[in-house]
């Protein structure tokens, strides 16, 4: 594995080819906030909180560090006025959904995000995708997935699979930053899990 030399926040960092900027930063104990990232899962690049500024071949651009691959002589800045402003707005958009989320509140404090900037939204899912991806990539059960697109996108349990697998697993529950996942599960269980007794009742 060839060695790549880059600079993060003025600090010289050595990384291996194929690593992402986030991985390189974490290996050098430089903190970059994340929400949709998980070490056991493929990088998702959805929350954009890990956005950093990179300078390569004289040009500066904004990229998400969880996906962007390290390059020789890359110069990375993890904080700046622009980055902080972006993170603040992103947090405010998420807080409109889940104002009580501890994880969001911690970050909000750091970036001065106002949880009342936007009108409250009905769903407290922030679409980090951790539940869906964990069930697909780690557990390989695919009991929960996404439906629809755009502003109507949601997570949805597959009742036939969830009724068999979830009660003995629930490993994804601790990943959810807002507890929406647990609420969705309970609702699906109540409304849609196939019940043997009711099916025989219907047949009569």
């Amino acid at each position, binding site marked *: 594995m060839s060695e790549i030399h880059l600079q993060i926040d003025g600090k010289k960092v050595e990384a291996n080819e194929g690593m992402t900027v986030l991985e390189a930063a974490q290996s050098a104990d430089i903190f970059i906030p994340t929400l949709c990232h998980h070490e056991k899962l493929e990088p998702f690049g959805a929350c954009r909180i890990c956005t950093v500024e990179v300078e390569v071949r004289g040009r500066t651009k904004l990229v998400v560090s969880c996906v962007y691959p390290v390059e020789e002589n890359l110069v990375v800045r993890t904080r700046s006025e622009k980055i902080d402003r972006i993170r603040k707005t992103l947090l405010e958009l998420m807080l409109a959904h889940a104002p009580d989320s501890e994880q969001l509140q911690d970050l909000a404090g750091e970036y001065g995000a106002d949880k009342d900037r936007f009108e409250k939204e009905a769903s407290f899912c922030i679409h980090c995708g951790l539940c869906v991806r964990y069930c*697909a990539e780690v557990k390989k059960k*695919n*009991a*929960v*997935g*996404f*439906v629809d*697109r755009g502003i109507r996108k949601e997570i949805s349990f*597959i009742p*036939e699979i969830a009724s068999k697998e979830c009660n003995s697993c629930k490993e994804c529950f601790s990943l959810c930053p807002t507890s929406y996942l647990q609420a969705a599960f309970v609702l699906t269980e109540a409304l849609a899990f196939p019940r043997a007794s009711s099916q025989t009742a219907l047949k009569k």
Partner: protein
Amino acid sequence: MDIERIDQIIDKHQGVASSLIQILLEIQSENHWLPREAIERVSEKLHVPLSRIQHISTFYKAFSLVPKGRHEIHVCMGTACHVRGAMRVLDTVQDLTGIKPGETDLDLKFSLETVNCLGCCALGPVMEIDGKIHGKLLPSETADVLKSYE
């Protein structure tokens, strides 16, 4: 739709996972909607998780997970039609049929959808019913057009 026909469609595309969308399009085209049994069969034969098919069948607007009405009304909301008053045509259709886009009436007579550009911009505003294009439509004319469908 029977399992045999579904299997035929799957085999026609060599049962390859990348043909998933093409397979579902064929089932949708023949059956006018995707019943649960069809989705489960496709998931089984293509070795594709149900969650993925669920996402695909809700992400792409060509698919319907509920039965459609006898007549599918498509009101074009493309920019050219919008600028020529498509919103008012849509409002009138909604009032007359009692349904909103994405819905089907209780008699299963009409299903209403908005579409983003049928490519007939010269005839805007455009409403398409069962493949027939009604162009240069005025809201006051929509009642007569809809009456002609049983």
